[in-house]
C-alpha cells in the first residue's frame, strides 16, 4: 500500500476509535504512533513519544494559552459581564426583542476580554437567561441568542482558537487577533438584525421594555469602562508592540484580577475556582494537542496533506469553488466533531491546500474561526448549545438548536461577505507593523 493509502486508512481507524468514545487526543495519538512506527520504524516512533509531550508543553509559544483563559475567568469573577449586560439593556431594551439584542451585544463585549466561546456563553447565560425569562421572552429565542452570541468569544480577540491556529500555521497571533475585530463587530450587528427580523415576524417572542432616557443611557456607558480599559491595554498593547502576546495575556489576567479585587469579589472559593477551571481547561487542550502533534508526524510522512494540496491546486475549477468545498466540509465536520479536535485535525491537512491556492493565511484563520462558531451551534454536536440547555431546564437540546438556527443565516452572510471582501478581515492587521 502506498504511504498515502496508509494515511487514509489511519484517518478512518481514528474516526472509528472516536465513534467508540475513545478520547479524541488518544485516538489521534494511537493512530499517529502506530502509523509513524509502520512507516519510519519503531525506534523513531518511540523516541518521538518521549519527546513530544515534554517538548511541546515546555515551550514558550503556548504559555499564552492558559494566561488568556485565566483572564476570561477573572473577568467573570469581577462581574464585568453583569455590567455589560445592564448597560446594553439600557440601550436596546426598548426595542422589540431588545433584551435578546442586548444579550448578543453584551456577548460581543465580553468576547473582547474572554477568549473562549463556551465561557462567554456560560457567563452571559447565567445573567441574561433569567432576565429574559422573567419578562416573558420566548425560551427558544432566549437560549438561542445566548448560545449563538457566546460563539463571538473566539472571533473577537483575545481568542483561544486564533492562538491554536497561529501555533499550527506559524502565523502572527497579533495579526490574527486584529483580523477578528471587524468581522466580529459585523457579526454582532448581523445578530441584532436577525433578532429584529425574528421578533418583527412574531412579536410575541420578545416584548419591548420601557425606554431608558438618553441621559441615563450615556451615564450607563461609564459602567463598562473596565472592559474597555482591559481590551485597550491587551489588544492595543499587542497592536502597538508594547507587549508580546504572552505579556498581554498576563497583564490582562492581572488587570482583571485587580478589577475583581477592587469590587471585593475575590474570595478563596472564587479564586481557586477560577484557577482550577484554567488549569483543567489547559490540560484538556494539551491532552488533545499532544495527540494531534503525534498524528501530525504520521501525516507528514504519509504526505497526505501535500498530495491533497497538489490535487486541489490542479483541479480544473477556480480557487473559489475549492474554498466553497472546504467551507462545506467544515460545516459538516463542525456538526459532528468537537471544535478543538476539528481544528487540530484539519488545519494541517487544509492549510497547505489553502496556501497553494493563494489565499491569505490570516484571512483563512478568520474564516476557520467563523466556521468553528457555526460548528458550536449545529447538531448533533454543538457544545454551546449543550452548555446553554444544561443551564435552562425548560428547553430541550433540540429546542436550543432550533433557537440558534436563525443566527446561522447571519454567520453564512458573514462568510459570504468575507469571500467577497477579504479586506473586511485584513484592513486592520495590515496597518500593524
Amino acid at each position, binding site marked *: 500500500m502506498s504511504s498515502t493509502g496508509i494515511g487514509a486508512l489511519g484517518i478512518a481507524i481514528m474516526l472509528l476509535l472516536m*465513534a467508540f*468514545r475513545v478520547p479524541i487526543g488518544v485516538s489521534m495519538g494511537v493512530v499517529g504512533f502506530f502509523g509513524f512506527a509502520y512507516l519510519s520504524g519503531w525506534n523513531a516512533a518511540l523516541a518521538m513519544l518521549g519527546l513530544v509531550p515534554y517538548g511541546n*508543553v515546555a515551550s*514558550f509559544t503556548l504559555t499564552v494559552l492558559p*494566561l488568556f483563559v*485565566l483572564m476570561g475567568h477573572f473577568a467573570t469573577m469581577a462581574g464585568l459581564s453583569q455590567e455589560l449586560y445592564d448597560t446594553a439593556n439600557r440601550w436596546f431594551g426598548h426595542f422589540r426583542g431588545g433584551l435578546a439584542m442586548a444579550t448578543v451585544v453584551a456577548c460581543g463585549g465580553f468576547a473582547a476580554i474572554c477568549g473562549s466561546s463556551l465561557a462567554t456563553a456560560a457567563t452571559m447565560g447565567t445573567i441574561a437567561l433569567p432576565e429574559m425569562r422573567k419578562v416573558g421572552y420566548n425560551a427558544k429565542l432566549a437560549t438561542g441568542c445566548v448560545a449563538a452570541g457566546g460563539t463571538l468569544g473566539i472571533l473577537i480577540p483575545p481568542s483561544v482558537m486564533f492562538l491554536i491556529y497561529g501555533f499550527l500555521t506559524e502565523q502572527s497571533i497579533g495579526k490574527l487577533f486584529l483580523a477578528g475585530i471587524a468581522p466580529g463587530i459585523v457579526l454582532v450587528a448581523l445578530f441584532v438584525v436577525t433578532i429584529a427580523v425574528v421578533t418583527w415576524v412574531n412579536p410575541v417572542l420578545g416584548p419591548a421594555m420601557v425606554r431608558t432616557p438618553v441621559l441615563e443611557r450615556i451615564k450607563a456607558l461609564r459602567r463598562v469602562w473596565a472592559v474597555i480599559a482591559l481590551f485597550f491595554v491587551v489588544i492595543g498593547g499587542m497592536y502597538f508592540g508594547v507587549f508580546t502576546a504572552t505579556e498581554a495575556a498576563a497583564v490582562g489576567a492581572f488587570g482583571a484580577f485587580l478589577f475583581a479585587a477592587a469590587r471585593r469579589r475575590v474570595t478563596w472559593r472564587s479564586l481557586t475556582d477560577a484557577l482550577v477551571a484554567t*488549569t*483543567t481547561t489547559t*490540560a484538556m487542550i494539551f491532552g488533545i494537542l499532544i495527540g494531534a502533534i503525534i498524528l501530525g508526524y504520521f501525516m507528514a510522512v504519509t504526505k497526505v496533506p501535500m498530495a491533497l494540496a497538489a490535487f486541489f491546486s490542479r483541479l480544473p475549477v477556480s480557487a473559489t469553488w475549492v474554498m466553497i468545498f472546504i467551507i462545506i466540509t467544515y460545516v459538516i465536520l463542525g456538526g459532528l466533531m468537537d471544535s478543538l479536535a476539528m481544528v487540530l485535525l484539519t488545519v494541517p491537512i487544509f492549510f497547505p491546500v489553502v496556501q497553494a491556492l493563494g489565499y491569505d493565511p490570516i484571512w483563512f484563520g478568520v474564516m476557520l474561526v467563523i466556521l468553528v462558531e457555526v460548528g458550536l451551534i449545529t447538531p448533533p454536536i454543538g457544545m454551546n448549545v449543550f452548555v446553554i440547555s444544561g443551564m435552562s431546564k425548560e428547553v430541550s437540546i433540540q429546542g436550543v438548536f432550533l433557537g440558534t438556527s436563525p443566527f446561522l443565516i447571519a454567520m453564512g452572510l458573514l462568510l459570504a461577505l468575507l469571500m467577497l471582501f477579504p479586506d473586511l478581515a485584513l484592513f486592520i492587521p495590515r496597518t500593524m507593523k
Partner: protein
Amino acid sequence: MGALLRGAIGVANVVSLLGLVAMTAVTVVDVAGRYLFNRPLPGALELSELLMVFLVFGAFAVTELRNGHVDIDVVVTKLSPRARALCETFAALLSTAFWGAITWRTALHAQNVWRAGETTPNLSLPIAPFVWAATVGTLLFTLALVVRTLAALRRVVRP
C-alpha cells in the same frame, strides 16, 4: 480509588495552580520591570516555559478525575448498558496504554537529559528535574486511567 492516589493527585493539582500563579506573576513582574524600572526579569521566558511543565502535567490527572478530557458521544448512547460499558472499558484501556507508554518514554527522556547534564540557556537551571516532574504527572494520569478502566470493567460484569 486508593486514598494515596487521590492524595497524590490533590498535591499535583496544587502544584499546577501554583505554577499558573507563578507564571502570571513572572510575566507581570518582567513587564513591570521593563517599563517601570527599566530592569526586566532575567530569564523570564525560560521560567515561564518551566512553569508550564508544572501547570500542564500537574493538571492532567485531576482533569481526568473531573471527566474533563473530551470524547464524542454519538454512537455509544444507542447501545445496551453492557455494550456501552464494554466500549468504555476499551476506551479506558487504550487511554491507559497510550499514557503509560508516554510515561515510560518520558522517564527515559528524563534519564537522557540527566546524563547529558542539560541546563537552560540563561539561568543554567538543570532541566532533568522538570522532565522528572512531567513524568510524575503523566504517571498519575495513567494511574487515574487504570482506576477508570477497572470501574468500567466492573460495569461490564454487573451493568
